[in-house]
């Protein structure tokens, strides 16, 4: 009976109902997809790194404390660092309008410098948030009827999905209000508290870009 069982086992192996057609092609297609995905991932990492570097540079440029820290690090304690001349300082927020996508603006509100940036991107869906330090808090807020986030506390990092699907990492040193209008994401940095930030945004949140 044992020998018969061995023969039966060999027999059923040849009779397994398995559709093996196209197996080689399926594997080849998966390897192609992985290869493509790997190349995209590499490019994405480079883009994230580039954005992170850009944000660090922007943070250094816009914050006196950061500028001083970098200057001290290089031993340049007596160096005066000038603001980027391309970014005009406005002192009349009453007439201020939110910048268009791809633009940034620094304005002065009650003696404080406030930076407003606009990019194509979204908070919703696959947003990822990561905080550096337990003292950072992120709360979801309503900004004139639009989804927003108020990030306050320690320096932090915010990751969100840009309109082309890339993940963007932003290093933010101060309290920040982010809100989205359609495919556009606004960032307001420099207010001490949420109420002041929301009051400043006011109706501009809705008026700048229509849904």
């Amino acid at each position, binding site marked *: 009976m044992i020998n018969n*069982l061995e023969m039966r086992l060999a027999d059923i*192996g040849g009779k397994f109902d398995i559709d093996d057609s196209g197996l080689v092609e399926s594997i080849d297609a998966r390897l192609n997809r992985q290869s493509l995905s790997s190349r995209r991932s590499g490019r994405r990492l480079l883009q994230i790194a580039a954005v992170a570097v850009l944000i660090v540079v922007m943070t250094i440029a816009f914050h006196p404390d950061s500028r001083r820290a970098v200057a001290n690090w290089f031993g340049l304690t007596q160096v005066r660092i000038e603001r980027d001349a391309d970014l005009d300082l406005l002192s009349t927020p009453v007439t201020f309008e939110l910048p268009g996508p791809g633009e940034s603006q620094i304005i002065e509100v009650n003696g404080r410098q406030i930076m407003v940036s606009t990019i194509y991107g979204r908070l919703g869906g696959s947003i990822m948030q990561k905080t550096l330090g337990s003292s950072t808090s992120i709360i979801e807020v309503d900004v004139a009827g639009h989804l927003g986030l108020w990030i306050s506390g320690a320096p932090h990092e915010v990751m969100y999905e840009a309109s082309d699907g890339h993940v963007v990492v932003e290093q933010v040193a101060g309290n920040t209000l982010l809100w989205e209008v359609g495919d556009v994401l606004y960032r307001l940095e420099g207010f001490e508290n949420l109420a002041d930030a929301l009051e400043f945004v006011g109706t501009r949140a809705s008026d700048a870009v229509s849904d």
Partner: protein
Amino acid sequence: MGSPDLAECDDLALLARARKDDRPAFGELVRRHQHSALRVAAVISGSTEEAKDIVQDAFVNIHRKLDSYRGTGSVRSWMLRVVANHAKNHVRSRIRRIRREDQHAGLLLRVDDGTEPMAVQRSENLAVAEALGRLPLHDREVLGCRFVAELSEAETAEVLAVAIGTVKSRTSRALAKLQREFERAEFTEGR
């Protein structure tokens, strides 16, 4: 895939080419060993339906770690070991999901022609397949490699990463269990 040039290469030569990102060479390796791989995956997983997915995952993984082949044992045994491990992992993850008694429901056999001798043979084959499916994993894997995939004792030892002596003893015990299981099923069904 499957050009005359590749068909003349042995497995080691194909592996060397595949390591240099020669995709057709890797495809030829898959084509040569897919039938054994599918049988091993089916018996270990207890499912002909899931065997193809398991083998596909295993070969994608094999392609990722082509450099890990150390030259001990044949290329075929090395690849089938990866397939067997994938199948075992598949079973373990499924065991976590479903009840124990549902897990070996699917060793399906193709339908032959409808003649009387073939119908009898098919009935007996089905009974053996069902009995095989009810055996514990470590018994299924050794019987699957030795008889269903028709590997030698040495190849089975390489695939299961055990000594040849262990393959012999496990085979003997597993066959005895299979026979008891087969007889129990015959008695239960009143054949």
